[in-house]
């Protein structure tokens, strides 16, 4: 119901916190304030484009004090001049048209801002402002106060201007220009009518076509020559060799043709070929601007931190400038950037960034605290032990896996095919040449070139880019974002899937415990809590924490039957709790739910149900995957949950516990050395090493816009149960590629039969080439879509 939801952020309103303002209902003061700001500045249109578009502003007091530091601000700015500063800020909350609208009207909220422009795809806003009238800090505060807190991390540091490579687009533009004009100018000659008119202008047309083909031949196709040359040098026959060869032979023969007036040449086919192949490249290059697959610790770490000088004053310093012995101030929700020793009395640190588990760890004065933790609560003071680059967490990144920028090690499917295709093609050309040379030297040269032209594996080269590009898009629509098209190929080859436990197969949400049965009174709760005190079973511990604090009483006798339950006697009564067999109480046996039954003074009361914290569909997923893949669960936790997991997951699943980040990495490495193709699915920084090491690292994320470590793909957590489908789909994609290879080879056979017999007319080439391209492209597009639909 609309009325129950906050007008600003759309969250459900808890009745007692409800705030009424201007006839609208808000869930909290923050949301109301944002509404007030907007309505005072005539920006309430914000709510017209989308219902409840906002976010609750967070308390950020002191968080951005470092923006007072000129040096840091300079590093963040994109452009800097006396009266004009330009800054690009990443704002994760950008999600709808209202967001665009409000962020592009910032100048109404803050004088000094001249323009602001949103890039929706990248979730960035580019603000131009006058530093004399406002400051970056003010802008950041303004954004935060309206619920659009920018995300500034160490990654922004030294960002400077990113160079955008647009050369492919230029090449396509030029190729299309050449292709289109040449096609038009070639038409008269296609119909080869011996007419005075055509004969008169033939030379002019041909030389014009020659001239027009030059930019395409020299500039647009240049990438293929470079790649072919590289592959010859590294002795790997990739698909670019026959392509480059085909283009060059086409150009040379066509030039010879028009110089000696043999015919019009194949310039039209050549330019069409270049254009279509570049188009394929572009199609494959689907990128997700708003996702980053190359993240390391830098995107998690703050850019600056508050340092306490010996004389007691506070100063913001860049994280890189922190030195051993410095004293730092860490505020609520701030990330600890370096290893150090706690000086303040107490701290509660959340290491969820590192371990993926959201549990606060209490630290006392003098304890060592590690980088990557987040302080919750009061401001704490710490002394630095190591600088950023030497801290434990950052050291993980100096592991080799992160250092080498892996040039795709494996061979792509196209390259594998071309290893056979290229030599076969060259052999055929040479054999036909030798055969014809005894009959007619002129025809021999014609046949030789014709073979290379026709067999130029245009369709072959287009198959993979179009298939994989389309698969990438379809997966993207289903919230499975892959880094590039090659990952699809890799995905099809995987035979071992490694899951992280915490945060991957479990949700981050805390398990809820519910009670079913007769309601327990305070006295009974007291007995229960005291009975639980003595037990170390994980379920007992959790139940113990769940029951509110009670008065302590001593047990008379306490008995724990391992794997069954507890029987405790008190002066006031007795408690028996545990499995249904233990209590000899027959309830409908839903073994999938974890239950602890309670019996007090011999009377059955009810049961506590431990709601499963595992992701929805986990069991079905593992069941689907287990026949085809070796499944492994790799966890950093202790094996407290081994029993539950063993019960839930198929028997063949391997469970490995107590793995530190480096051990996880080594474990993957070991699997690979046994010849396995490993896919790792994980989250959190503790998996980062393993994700980088595995053949494919997939990071699972509750909110894809927020952080995920470096990986090959990002999966939205809601799609977790679809992993089996994605795996199958990637296999089907490869099947499509093979089918289409067959199809394009068929075309090649037809074309070659023309070529070998020496009957290849330019017009035949001009028909076969686009025709094969179109069939291939439509075939793979249809097939991939059909496979996507069939569940």
């Amino acid at each position, binding site marked *: 119901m609309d009325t129950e939801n906050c007008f600003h952020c759309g969250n459900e309103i808890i009745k007692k916190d409800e705030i009424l303002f201007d006839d609208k209902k808000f869930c909290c003061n923050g949301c109301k304030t944002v509404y007030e700001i907007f309505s005072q500045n*005539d920006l309430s249109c914000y709510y017209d*484009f989308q219902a409840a578009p906002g976010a609750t502003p967070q308390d950020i007091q002191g968080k951005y004090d470092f923006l007072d530091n000129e040096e840091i601000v300079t590093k963040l700015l994109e452009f800097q001049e006396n009266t004009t500063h330009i800054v690009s800020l990443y704002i994760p909350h950008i999600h709808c*048209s209202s967001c665009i609208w409000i962020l592009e009207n910032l100048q109404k909220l803050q004088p000094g801002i001249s323009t602001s422009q949103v*890039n*929706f795809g*990248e979730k960035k806003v580019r603000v131009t402002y006058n530093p004399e009238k406002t400051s970056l800090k003010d802008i950041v505060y303004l954004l935060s106060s309206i619920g659009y807190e920018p995300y500034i991390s160490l990654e922004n540091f030294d960002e400077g201007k990113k160079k955008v490579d647009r050369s492919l687009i230029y090449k396509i*533009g030029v190729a299309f220009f050449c292709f289109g*004009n040449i096609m038009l100018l070639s038409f008269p000659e296609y119909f080869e009518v011996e007419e005075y008119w055509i004969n008169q202008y033939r030379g*002019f047309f041909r030389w*014009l076509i020659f001239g027009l083909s030059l930019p395409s031949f020299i500039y647009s196709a240049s990438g293929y020559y470079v790649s072919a040359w590289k592959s010859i040098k590294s002795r790997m026959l990739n698909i670019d060799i026959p392509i480059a060869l085909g283009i060059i032979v086409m150009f040379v023969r066509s030039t010879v043709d028009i110089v000696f007036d043999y015919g019009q040449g194949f310039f039209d086919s050549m330019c069409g070929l270049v254009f279509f192949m570049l188009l394929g490249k572009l199609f494959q290059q689907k990128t997700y601007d708003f996702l980053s697959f190359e993240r390391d610790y830098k995107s998690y770490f703050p850019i600056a931190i508050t340092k306490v000088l010996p004389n007691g004053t506070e100063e913001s310093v860049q994280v890189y400038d922190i030195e051993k012995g410095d004293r730092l101030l860490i505020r609520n929700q701030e990330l600890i950037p370096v290893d150090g020793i706690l000086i303040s009395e107490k701290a509660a640190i959340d290491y969820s960034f590192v371990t993926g588990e959201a549990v606060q760890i209490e630290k006392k004065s003098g304890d060592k605290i590690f980088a990557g933790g987040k302080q919750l609560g009061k401001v704490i003071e710490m002394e630095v032990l190591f600088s950023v680059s030497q801290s434990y967490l950052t050291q993980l990144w100096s592991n080799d896996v992160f250092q080498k920028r892996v040039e795709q090690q494996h061979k792509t499917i196209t390259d594998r095919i071309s290893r056979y295709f290229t030599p076969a093609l060259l052999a055929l050309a040479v054999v036909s040449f030798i055969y014809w040379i005894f009959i007619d030297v002129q025809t021999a040269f014609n046949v030789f070139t014709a073979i290379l032209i026709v067999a130029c594996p245009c369709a072959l080269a287009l198959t993979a880019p179009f298939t994989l590009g389309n698969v990438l898009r379809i997966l993207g629509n289903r919230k499975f974002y892959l880094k590039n098209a090659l990952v699809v190929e890799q995905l099809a080859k995987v035979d071992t899937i490694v899951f992280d436990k915490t945060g991957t197969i479990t949700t981050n949400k805390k398990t809820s415990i519910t009670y079913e049965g007769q309601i327990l009174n305070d006295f009974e709760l007291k007995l229960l809590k005291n009975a639980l005190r003595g037990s170390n079973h994980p379920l007992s511990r959790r139940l113990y924490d769940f029951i509110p604090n009670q008065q302590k009483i001593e047990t008379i006798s306490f008995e724990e039957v391992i794997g069954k339950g507890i029987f405790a006697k008190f002066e006031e009564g007795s408690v028996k709790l545990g499995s249904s067999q233990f209590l000899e109480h027959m309830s409908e046996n839903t073994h999938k739910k974890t239950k602890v039954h309670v019996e007090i003074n011999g009377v059955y009361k009810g049961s506590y149900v431990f709601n499963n914290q595992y992701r929805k569909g986990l069991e079905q997923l593992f069941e689907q995957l287990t026949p085809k893949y070796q499944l492994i669960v790799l966890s950093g936790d202790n094996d407290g949950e081994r029993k539950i997991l063993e019960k839930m997951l198929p028997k063949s699943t391997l469970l490995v516990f107590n793995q530190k980040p480096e051990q996880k990495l080594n474990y993957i490495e070991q699997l690979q050395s046994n010849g396995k193709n490993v896919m790792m699915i994980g989250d959190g920084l503790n998996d980062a090493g393993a994700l980088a090491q595995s053949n494919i690292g997939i990071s699972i994320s509750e909110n894809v816009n927020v952080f995920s470590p470096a990986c090959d793909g990002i999966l939205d957590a809601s799609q977790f149960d679809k992993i089996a489908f994605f795996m199958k789909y990637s296999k089907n994609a490869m099947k499509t590629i093979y089918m289409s290879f067959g199809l394009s080879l068929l075309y090649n056979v037809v074309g070659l039969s023309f070529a070998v017999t020496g009957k290849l007319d330019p017009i035949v080439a001009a028909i076969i080439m686009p025709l094969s391209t179109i069939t291939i492209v439509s075939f793979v597009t249809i097939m991939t879509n059909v496979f996507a639909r069939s569940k």
Partner: protein
Amino acid sequence: MSVIYLLITISIIVAVLFLGAFIKAVKSGQYDDDYTPSVRMLFDDELVKENSNKLIQTEKQKQKSI
């Protein structure tokens, strides 16, 4: 018949101009963000209308308060 030379020259020149325009547009970053402009164009008008009215109002209010 030599008009054909002229016509083809013109047609090629026009095509080259278009190619140049395309390259210039790409270079200026026009195609980098292909989503936001499509949304942005939808709200320009209403903003101007509403604000021109209300800006005056708020200025009046300010004057009153002074």
